[in-house]
């Protein structure tokens, strides 16, 4: 059961999850940007992530690069299958990435880089959500190649997952602002968190209801005996975390809403894992079929086991250096 391919599946899953955790709130701030038209507010919002966004985005490179190294066949099948959403995501990330520096380099009050930041974040998030849905609904594979058309990814389900991710990242962004800002800005972030939480619960419900209809494997995985003993705790835990989150928002707690939202993401992510395992391309390629040879996976395992703890260490330090509330006029810029 515990073999190299399984270990690597967990490592890649971990990298992608850390990406979602860290870049999720960055992108969420971009999605929420249009709701904060004041320049002063926007400066504060930007400054809450300016020192860390680059590190956050690096996990996406690890997810992609690690997948090419550990599961080259899956990478080679998924990328052409998700061609348009991938290109859209990359271009979206270009706009939002350069905006971090560019918006400080022009004096105009409402500058086009704010628009690039918001638009780029929205497009990148939507593309990631659509890609997720497109993977879940299955991909047409023949031999070692993607064999579908270049619009296959676009379905009602993938649009649903796209919207769900936009809502989810926006909630992460809103609860991040609750934690990192104060005064009127924080108040508005609170109100947004309430609305977005309701929307996120609807989105989780909709995706959960729609998923079993995609393929009979998902239904069996979730509802057949004895699997249900293992799967039932997931929705129960979602309910419990939701209750805690509602209480934390009610108490106007600073930190809890953000971390409980992360817990909600972790549970949804675990649900995704339950649906997919052991496939890396659902219904066609398992992690063992896609795995690169043992000596490639072992070679990288050395690096990962030493370097990832180190990376998490200095990343935590960077967050620690820039901890605390960010105030207007006290930015890092």
């Amino acid at each position, binding site marked *: 059961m515990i073999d190299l391919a399984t270990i690597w599946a967990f490592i890649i899953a971990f990298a992608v999850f850390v990406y979602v955790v860290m870049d999720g709130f960055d992108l969420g701030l971009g999605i929420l940007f249009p709701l904060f038209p004041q320049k002063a507010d926007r400066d504060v919002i930007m400054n809450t992530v*300016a*020192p*860390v966004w*680059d*590190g956050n*985005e*690096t996990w996406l*490179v*690890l997810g*992609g*690069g*690690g997948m*090419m*190294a550990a599961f*080259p066949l899956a*990478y*080679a099948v*998924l*990328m*052409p299958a998700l*061609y*348009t959403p991938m*290109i859209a995501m*990359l*271009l979206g*990330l*270009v*706009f939002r*990435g*350069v905006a971090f*520096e*560019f918006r*400080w*380099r*022009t004096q105009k009050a409402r500058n086009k880089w704010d628009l*690039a930041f918001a638009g780029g974040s929205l497009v990148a998030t939507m593309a990631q959500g659509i890609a997720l849905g497109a993977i879940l609904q299955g991909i047409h594979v023949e031999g*070692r*190649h993607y064999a579908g058309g*270049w619009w296959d990814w676009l379905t009602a389900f993938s649009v649903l997952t796209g919207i769900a991710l936009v809502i989810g990242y926006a909630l992460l962004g809103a609860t991040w602002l609750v934690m990192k800002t104060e005064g009127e800005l924080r108040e508005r972030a609170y109100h947004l968190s309430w609305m977005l939480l309701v929307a996120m619960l609807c989105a989780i419900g909709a995706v959960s209801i729609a998923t079993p209809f995609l393929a009979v494997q998902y239904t069996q995985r979730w509802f057949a005996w004895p699997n249900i003993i293992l799967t039932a705790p997931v929705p129960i835990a979602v309910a419990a975390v939701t209750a805690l989150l509602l209480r934390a928002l009610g108490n106007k707690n600073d930190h809890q809403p953000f971390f409980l939202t992360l817990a909600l993401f972790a549970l949804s992510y675990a649900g995704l894992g339950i649906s997919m395992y052991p496939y890396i391309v659902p219904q066609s390629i398992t992690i063992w079929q896609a795995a*690169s*040879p043992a*000596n*490639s996976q072992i*070679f*990288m395992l050395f*690096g*990962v086991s030493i370097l*990832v703890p180190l*990376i998490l260490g*200095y*990343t935590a330090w*960077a967050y620690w*250096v*820039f*901890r*605390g509330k960010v*105030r207007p006029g*006290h*930015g*890092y810029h």
Partner: protein
Amino acid sequence: MFEGWDAVVLARAQFAFTMSFHIVFPAFSIGLASYLAVLEALWLATKREVYINLFNYWLKIFAVAFGMGVVSGIVMSYQFGTNWSSFADKTGPVIGPMMAYEVLTAFFLEAGFLGVMLFGLERVGPRLHFVATLMVAIGTLISAFWILSANSWMQTPAGHAVNADGQFVAADWLKVIFNPSFPYRLVHMVLAAYLTTSLVVGGVGAWHLLRDQHLAGPRVMFSMAMWMATLVAPIQILAGDQHGLNTLEHQPAKVMAMEGHFQSHKDGAPLILFGWPDQREAKVKYAIEVPKLSSLILKHSLDAPLAGLDTVPRENWPPVPITFWAFRIMVGLGFLILGLGLLSLLMRWRGMMYQSPLLHRFAVLMGPAGFIAVLAGWITTETGRQPFTVYGLLRTTDSVSPLAAPAVGSSLIAFIIVYFAVFTAGVIYILRLMAQPPHPGEQGPTKDLPARAAGITPAAGAAVEGAR
């Protein structure tokens, strides 16, 4: 649109376009990160204000350039899958781990310490801040190590086997990583990055000296940059020569294309200085050549025989005109850089370093020369290894994704539009920053005072006070 186009050509155009835009930024930030580390070290050692002013001045430029490098780099890491999926499937077990190591050892290091480097001086104190700068600089060099190793393996594959699925697998990782062309390529590229940066720094310094010869900052940066160019240009020419000899050994067809040698020469091959290579007729038209010089350079003997492309099957020929001309542009600029270094040495010796408008104009003109030389060099080596992605083993036409031309063509158009819009703006912002001379009390990317109340540690605060 794009019906009837060749999807392979479009995928290659996309890679060439996105890569050319990308490489400009790392070439600059590898050198600039090291320069910033040197400036900060000098400031810590001497406490002279001019160094911290220069540090903050170039740090702002670094922040903009680094951001552009990051976003254009992510595009590259996903492009192997989107446009070159067969290549990714077949070579993933070998070059995938090298790129994963690049992420783990370099990208995280750079990104993790970048925030502190850009915004953290007053929060962590000068010593720890210097560590952060150093980590970013080391990160850029480690990144160069891995990506050049991966590229070199594609050029001179070694230490591999092929498995039942037709994938390349590593038989010996050390042989894979330290493949035959890697040491040469690494040295050549890192020196190129240092030269590129010194030319930019020198050009900016010269620009301000042309207006005012007495500005402290421009004087210091101009002098440092000219030392760098003077010392590194000859080493780079030597390194390039060695790299060329290595290429002759492992990728002879590339050297034949660089030299324009369609025909073999039994007793001494001429060096074709200029001419128009005609791929179809297999000859260089209007050639201006020096007899036997090519044999002297490549074989260190006037009469050594030198094989030409007539010994290589025609389907394995690289596109000769591009390789031929890109190579000449790179070499020509290399000698111009050497000339600038020597002129600066002469002026320095005569005490005219800061008073010679001729030298300053030359330096301004040469400001972008490094970028052009880097691009020309990469075009030479990447065009010259065609028609293969893994040299001699995997053809470019067998590397692409199963995509139709319209998909690849549309994404190419999207990249062209977005890159020109975004990076033109970025370059304008950088030029605007450069147009201002560094002045006393220069601020870094920090526009306002940092939030002291919010968690600055007393020790770090004291360290900052102590440093003032």
